[in-house]
């Protein structure tokens, strides 16, 4: 009985936290214009990353390829990293419509990213979670479509 109460309380805590987090995200405001650059340093300060979408603008509603350039903050290109990608729309509380992947290491720190897609206008966040011998880091890009 006690374990049932404990697990019910735990479930309620998780549900409440999830609801509050979702609610908070809905009211988030996009960051300042200076946070929307195509070159960003990771949260842990290990890597600097640059995204180069194919074409001048990021189109809406179609699959696209990007080049991701990775280097350490000291400027050394990184080719041997494990990179995973996620993101979404913080104000809407949903993720990316696709599961983009790094499919090819092009060399000199460049990586081909395939499967990127944005299905609606607004503020998007794309996160690259990077791990290599240099350390683990997450580089976050803000995009306005």
């Amino acid at each position, binding site marked *: 009985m006690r374990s049932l109460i404990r697990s019910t309380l735990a479930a309620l805590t998780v549900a409440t936290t999830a609801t509050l987090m979702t609610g908070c995200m809905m009211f988030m405001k996009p960051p300042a214009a200076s946070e929307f650059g195509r070159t960003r340093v990771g949260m842990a300060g290990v890597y600097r990353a640059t995204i180069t979408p194919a074409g001048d603008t990021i189109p809406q509603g179609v*699959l696209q390829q990007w080049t991701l350039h990775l280097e350490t903050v000291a400027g050394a290109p990184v080719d041997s990293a494990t990179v995973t990608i996620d993101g979404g729309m913080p104000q809407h509380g*949903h*993720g990316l419509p696709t599961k983009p*992947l790094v499919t090819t290491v092009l060399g000199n720190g460049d990586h081909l990213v395939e*499967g990127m897609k944005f*299905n609606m*206008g607004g503020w998007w966040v794309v996160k690259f979670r990077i791990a290599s011998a240099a350390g683990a880091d997450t580089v976050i890009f803000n995009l306005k479509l």
Partner: protein
Amino acid sequence: MTPTHSPRVLRNLSAIGVGLALGILALVPALARSNPQAPWTAAERTMLKSLSLSSLAPLPADHSNKYADDAAALRLGNLLFNDARLSGNGQVSCATCHSSEKGFQDNIPLGKGVGTAGRRTMPIAGTAHSPWQFWDGRADSHWAQALGPLESAVEHGGDRLQYARVLRQHYRAEYEAIFGAFPNLQGLPERAGPVADSARAAAWARITPARRDSISRVYANMGKAIAAFERQITFTPTRFDRYVDAELAGRAPTPGDNFSDDERAGLRLFIGKANCVNCHNGALLTDNHFHNTGVPQSQDGARADSGRATGVRAVMASEFNCLSHYSDAKPSDCGELRFAVTDGEELVRAYKTPSLRNAVTRAPFMHAGQFASIERVLLHYDRAPSAPAGHSELKRLGLSGTEVRQLAAFLKTLVSSVAYPAPVTSYTP
């Protein structure tokens, strides 16, 4: 006597003046909203342009179907689409549910073939622009979509060997002119296929893999011919398109195309406060993606329906997907499938955003005809109830009754005829 004011009074007065000015500035957008004839802003004009049919991209190539733009395949597909011999009881064709007189749908809550389907019949116009077919996206091409209902026990109710026999008997010349020699069906049972019916499924299992493959190839080719027809079912311009095109060109719309105050206000809500354009974007007013919008269970509550969560598993496993043996695509052409999201709570009870073109003509609404009127649909989006399962993406809108009426008025400007290839009564090479 001239009044004199102390510096404090002057400071207070100037503070009130600044406050009033700021208040008026804050009211400008609200005033624009309350004045339906207010000119469209630059950002609104950019949005309106993106929604006009004039902005629709050319028909995308279907690399998985090398016959997609073949005129002979289109003619054969047109015949097959209307042929009720392609069913278990000889009475159901694609056109039974996808009636050209009703914009290629049927206006009933659940499709009715040889039995009753689990969801609402989807319209066809413009769907060649979508990477996913069905409410749950369980097919990734028109040709794969066409093959689903044909072997469904409640839709056409037949099987692929039966259909191969119909094609061999009635369309052999047409088929061979497009796809090459018809396989030999001698010694095979009358009916067999990987269907729910256990006798026909067992008969299918007894056929050698090589012969099963040749029958499945005929079946896939049938789908490819039907797809060549279906991709030519398109929308024509609506009053909305003509209004926007005139507005953007700086000319007055012709009298019949001008928008009333309610229609303009509804359009402003559509691209603003009501957030409709988040999902209903682009020239077809759909993002071709899947969303849980808290739509209630089907009135036929016995059927559990988890939407995209099930659909994505089905398309990944489909023998007729873009990466399959029967597809004409290279793997690099199959990006939507390769990079599809395959798990997560967001897929639960997520359904494909339908185009809003002609939507008001398609009552009852939603994926199982849950709502009878467009006003009821708008109230649902206004109230944003919790989802029966998964998590709804909606937020409460706080629309007034007037705003609901204005949105409905705007949606009624999105109606036009559907264009489609003329019916074919007999084959003409």
